[in-house]
C-alpha cells in the first residue's frame, strides 16, 4: 500500500571515486567559497590523510583557515560550540568534515551557530528551526556506517544534562559528500564490522518503519544487498577497495533511506545501551538488530520475507513466515561470521553490558524518539525479554 503522503528531498551532491578526497576542487568551485574550516580526527591526521586533502585543496586555490581534532566519541555541545567559534574567528566561509559519525555530526551542528549566530541549544535544538540555507558544508566520510553525510539529523551529547540532543532540519544536509574508498582503508576490522552493521540496521529499520516510502525502500534494498555481499570482505581485507567502495556507497544509501523514513526499536534499544553503558552505537545496533527484528516479527513478516532474497536467502517455495525467519537467520549468520573474525561481539554480555542494567535499558528504550517510527508499540516489559535474549 502506498503511503498517504511522502517526500524525497535529496540536495546533497554525492561523488564517488578512488583518490577523490585529494582532488574534488571542481565540485568545491560550484559552492562558491574558497575558505574552509576543517573538522577531523587526530588519528586521521596522524595517518597523513588530512595532509593529502590539505595539499589537494591548496593546489586548487582553496584555503584551510583552521583545524579541529578534538571531537569526543559522542559529539559534545562543547566541541560543537568550539568549532562554531573557531571557524568564525578563522575567517572561514564554509565547513569541511573528514571523519566518522561524531566528527560529521559535530561539524553539522556547528554550522548552525557558525552561519546564523545565536545559541546552539536554545535556538536550534529541535526540528525545522531554520528558514534559510546554512554556509557550505562538505563531508568526506572515513567510516562506512553512519551515513551522516547524507542525513538531515545531528545528534549531540549534552553532558550538563546527561542527554542526547537531536537537531533535525533539511538545511543541515551537507552540500557535497565525497566518497573515497581510500579514506576507509585504515579502518580496523572491529570498526569496519560494527559500522557496517550500523548501516544494515539503518536500512532494515527504515524499510519496515511506519514512515517508509518507495524511494527509501529502494535505497534500503540496494544497501542491504551490498552489505551482505561486501561487509565480510571489507572486514577481512582492509585494502579490498571494491568491498570498501561498495560499503561506503551502501552506508550512504542507507543514510539517505533512514533520513527520510527514520529508524525504530533497534535504535531505541541501542541508544539506551549506549547512554547507560557507553557501548559504541554501531556495536549495540549490530548485536540488537536480529532481536529487534524478532520483536517486530508479527507485524513485519511480509517485509522481512521480501528482504530474505536480498540477504542471499533462497526463499523459493518458502511461506512468508519461513522467508521472514530466513531473513532474521541471515542477519544472525552475518553477525556470527564477523564475530568469528574477532571483529564484533554478538552478545551484550561480551560488549561489557552489566546484566543488572537490562531493566533500566528497557525503560530508557521506551523513552527514545525512535519508537514513534517503529511498526509496533514498544513496551518495556516485552523489550526486556529481547534484551535478555541478546545477553
Amino acid at each position, binding site marked *: 500500500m502506498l503511503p*498517504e*503522503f*511522502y*517526500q524525497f528531498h535529496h540536495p546533497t551532491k554525492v561523488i564517488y571515486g578512488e583518490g577523490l578526497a585529494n582532488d574534488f576542487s571542481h565540485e568545491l568551485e560550484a559552492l562558491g567559497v574558497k575558505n574552509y574550516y576543517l573538522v577531523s580526527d587526530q588519528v586521521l591526521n596522524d595517518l597523513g590523510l588530512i595532509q593529502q586533502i590539505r595539499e589537494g585543496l591548496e593546489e586548487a586555490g582553496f584555503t584551510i583557515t583552521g583545524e579541529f581534532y578534538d571531537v569526543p566519541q559522542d559529539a559534545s555541545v562543547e566541541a560543537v560550540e568550539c568549532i562554531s567559534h573557531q571557524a568564525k574567528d578563522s575567517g572561514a566561509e564554509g565547513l569541511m568534515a573528514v571523519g566518522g559519525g561524531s566528527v560529521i555530526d559535530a561539524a553539522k551542528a556547528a554550522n548552525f551557530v557558525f552561519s546564523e549566530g545565536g545559541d546552539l541549544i*536554545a*535556538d*536550534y*535544538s*529541535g*526540528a*525545522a*528551526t531554520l528558514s534559510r540555507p546554512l554556509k557550505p558544508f562538505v563531508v568526506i566520510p572515513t567510516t562506512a556506517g553512519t551515513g551522516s553525510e547524507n542525513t538531515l539529523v545531528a545528534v549531540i551529547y549534552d553532558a550538563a544534562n546527561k*542527554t542526547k*540532543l*537531536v537537531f*533535525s532540519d*533539511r538545511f543541515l544536509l551537507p552540500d557535497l559528500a565525497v566518497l573515497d574508498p581510500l579514506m576507509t582503508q585504515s579502518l580496523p576490522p572491529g570498526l569496519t564490522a560494527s559500522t557496517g552493521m550500523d548501516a544494515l540496521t539503518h536500512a532494515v529499520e527504515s524499510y519496515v518503519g511506519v*514512515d517508509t516510502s518507495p524511494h527509501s525502500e529502494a535505497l534500503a534494498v540496494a544497501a542491504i544487498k551490498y552489505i551482505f555481499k561486501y561487509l565480510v570482505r571489507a572486514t577481512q581485507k582492509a585494502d579490498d577497495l571494491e568491498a570498501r567502495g561498495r560499503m561506503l556507497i551502501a552506508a550512504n544509501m542507507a543514510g539517505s533511506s533512514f533520513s527520510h523514513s*527514520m529508524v525504530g526499536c533497534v535504535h531505541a534499544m541501542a541508544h539506551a545501551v549506549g547512554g547507560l553503558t557507553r557501548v559504541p552505537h554501531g556495536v549495540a545496533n549490530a548485536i540488537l538488530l536480529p532481536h529487534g527484528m524478532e520483536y517486530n516479527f508479527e507485524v513485519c513478516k511480509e517485509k522481512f520475507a521480501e528482504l530474505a532474497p536480498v540477504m542471499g536467502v533462497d526463499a523459493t517455495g518458502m511461506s512468508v513466515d519461513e522467508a521472514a525467519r530466513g531473513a532474521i537467520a541471515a542477519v544472525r549468520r552475518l553477525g556470527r561470521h564477523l564475530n568469528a573474525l574477532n571483529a564484533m561481539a554478538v552478545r551484550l554480555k561480551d560488549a561489557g553490558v552489566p546484566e543488572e542494567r537490562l531493566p533500566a535499558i528497557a525503560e530508557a528504550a521506551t*523513552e*527514545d*524518539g*525512535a*519508537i*514513534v*517510527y517503529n511498526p509496533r*508499540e514498544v513496551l518495556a516489559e516485552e523489550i526486556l525479554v529481547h534484551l535478555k535474549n541478546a545477553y
Partner: protein
Amino acid sequence: MSVFESREIFKEVIVGFFNLLGDTPQVADKLKASKMVIRFIYSDPDLAVVVDCSGDAVDVRPDDLDTKAIVEMSMKADIAHKFWFGKVNLTMALTRRQMVAKGPVPKILKLLPAIKPSYAMYPKYLDENGYSKYNIH
C-alpha cells in the same frame, strides 16, 4: 482564507479544548506524567498558549510569553485545527515545515500515543460547544 475568522474565536476554541483535555484523566494523567511545559505559537490568527503539565493539574495559560517552555511548537492555526482531528501526521508536518519544534522533539513524539483519544474528542467538543461550523465531516 483561514478557518478561524478572529483571534478571539480561535482562542476560545483551542483553550477550551486544552482545558477539556486537562480534565480528561485518560489523557491528562499521561500529560502530567510527562512533566512537559509546551508553548504553542500559532499564526493566522496569532496566539500563544502554554500547556503546563509540570504540576498536579494540566494548566492552560493563553498569552503566556514569559514561562520558560521545554518545547515550543509553532504552526498555523489551521494546521493545529487539522491536527486535533487526527488529520496531520506530526512527523511529516515537521519534515514539511508545517510545524516547527524547538527543544527535545523525542519527548513530544512520545506524547503522541497519549493524546490519541483527543482526536475523537475534538469534533465532539466542537459540536457540543457551539462551534460545529468548524467541524470537518
